[in-house]
């Protein structure tokens, strides 16, 4: 127990250290960039006095270390300050955007897993035969098609031609079915390449174990090849697969900017992107921190799950 507590505490400390490093890095980077949020807000005809007043109000006149200190102090209480552009609490902004990004990433991961694991297992059980080659072909195709293309194709087919779902935008969670419909196409477009990657990696992971004696033993007990792969090789390969899924989730959460743009979804990725363009430092800081934290936490979670899936990994 003591060991576990220690591991937990060191894990927590290293998470905090990671976040500190991330925040310092992003703070410095954004501050060194040319461009001034006050100028963006007030435009070409603003007077110098008005600019100075706004800069003061936004807290941009304080020395950098002081600004950073303020930011840290706020972050500790979950308060990332006011957005310079929107003039509302960054936390509120993150929460509303996360209401799009998190479900989108979750849907994509679910889709991805739902497609990739059966496909991988199917291919692994038929290694070197037609089914395997077909899965490999599809996976490679899925990986190769540029994301933008796929998104556009889905929109043209399902939104413009068939009018089944909207082409973009997000109606909010007040009407859950409308919200899910709005996220469906983006989730598919987002999931496709990831599913292709996961299929190939999972197939390899399963195949690596499919030759082990315990899988053959399953067959020697009277299981069919496919069942032996399903019951024995797949569970044994689950730990590395979970690790991959964890990495993918992090990527989907933060890396969906292109899909968010194509489907004009108000997600975290686009918020962050726009905040960089507008030098909205509190938002850049807050969102980056939340994303990095989410990635680290999700990866830790998947590592924990992997540990459950494979008792050998547990220390």
């Amino acid at each position, binding site marked *: 127990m003591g060991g576990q507590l220690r591991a937990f505490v060191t894990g927590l400390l290293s998470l905090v250290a*990671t976040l500190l490093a991330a925040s310092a890095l992003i703070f410095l*980077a954004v501050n060194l960039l040319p461009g001034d949020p006050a100028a963006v807000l007030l435009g070409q005809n603003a007077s110098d006095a008005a600019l100075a007043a706004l800069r003061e109000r936004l807290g941009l006149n304080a020395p950098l270390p002081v600004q950073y200190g303020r930011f840290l102090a706020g972050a500790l209480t979950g308060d990332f300050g006011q957005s310079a552009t929107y003039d509302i609490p960054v936390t509120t902004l993150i929460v509303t955007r996360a209401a799009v990004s998190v479900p989108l990433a979750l849907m994509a991961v679910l889709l991805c897993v739902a497609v990739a694991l059966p496909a991988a297992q199917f291919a692994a059980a038929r290694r070197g035969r037609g089914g395997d080659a077909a899965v490999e072909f599809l996976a490679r195709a899925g990986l190769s098609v*540029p*994301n*933008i293309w796929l998104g*556009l194709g889905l929109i043209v087919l399902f939104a413009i031609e068939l009018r089944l779902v909207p082409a973009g935008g997000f109606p909010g969670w007040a009407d859950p079915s409308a919200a899910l419909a709005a996220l469906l196409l983006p989730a598919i477009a987002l999931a496709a390449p990831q599913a292709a990657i996961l299929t190939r990696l999972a197939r390899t992971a399963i195949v690596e174990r499919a030759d082990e004696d315990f899988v053959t033993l399953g067959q020697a007990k009277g299981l069919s090849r496919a069942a032996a792969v399903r019951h024995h090789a797949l569970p044994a390969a689950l730990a590395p697969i979970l690790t991959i899924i964890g990495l993918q989730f*992090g990527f989907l959460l933060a890396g969906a900017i292109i899909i968010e743009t194509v489907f004009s979804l108000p997600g975290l990725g686009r918020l962050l992107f726009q905040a*960089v363009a507008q030098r909205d430092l509190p938002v850049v800081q807050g969102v980056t921190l939340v*994303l990095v934290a989410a990635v*680290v936490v999700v990866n830790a979670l998947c590592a924990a799950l992997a540990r459950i899936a494979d008792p050998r990994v547990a220390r």
Partner: protein
Amino acid sequence: MSRLAFSGTLVLLLCAVAALATLWTPHPVDTVAIGARFQAPSPAHPLGTDHLGRDLVSMLMAGAANSLGVAAAAIGLGAALGTAVGLLMCATGGALHVALLRASDLLFAFPALIVAAILATAFGPGAGVAVVAIGVFNVPVFARLAAATGAGLMATHFADAARLSGKGEFRTAVEHALPNMLPVIATQAATQFAIAILAEAGLSYVGLGVQPPDVSWGRMLAEAQTLVFMAPGLALWPGLAIALSVCVVTAFGERLRVQFDPRRP
């Protein structure tokens, strides 16, 4: 011809086209001829012309040079740095090892597009920024791989033998772990190269990739988006070019993996 040789030949062919384009294209790609835009395929322009009247074949060739060049440079950067970091992790223990591990995790957690956005604002968007952004994203990938592979190699008896010969950890890592992990690194590099081609397209889509007057497949694709209904070829060809090269390169990577697979019969 073996499948490895076949896919290798295709990759070489791709590179040859890209290399050729840096010296010569059938038509210039840095001039515009508005009067000649949206031309249908003809003997002079086998795939027609784009929205600025430029020859699509020439654009695809020039695009290959930039798209593949960015991908190759980025993976070169990522693989070299990542492998070095991974080796360092193998050769060190204690605080430095943990620090490197954390730093690599941190890099991995950072949204790559944001790194690109920040770099682009600082230095102006362009091929260089794309290379660095994609490269940085790849550093932890290779660092992890090198560290994991290297950890196994550093635990082998031949590494022990090197230690018993009086060599330090670092020298052992360089002399024994590094050469033995190269096949794994090369295989991963092929896969990452394919992903980098897609990443370049993505960066171009949000305006952070190669900038005009330079051409890249991603930029061509992005610019053709609103024209799909009127001039579908403008989106079709660069998309196909991306898809095919990703396909060819992943196939090559897969073949390499099989080739180096110790379990290969």
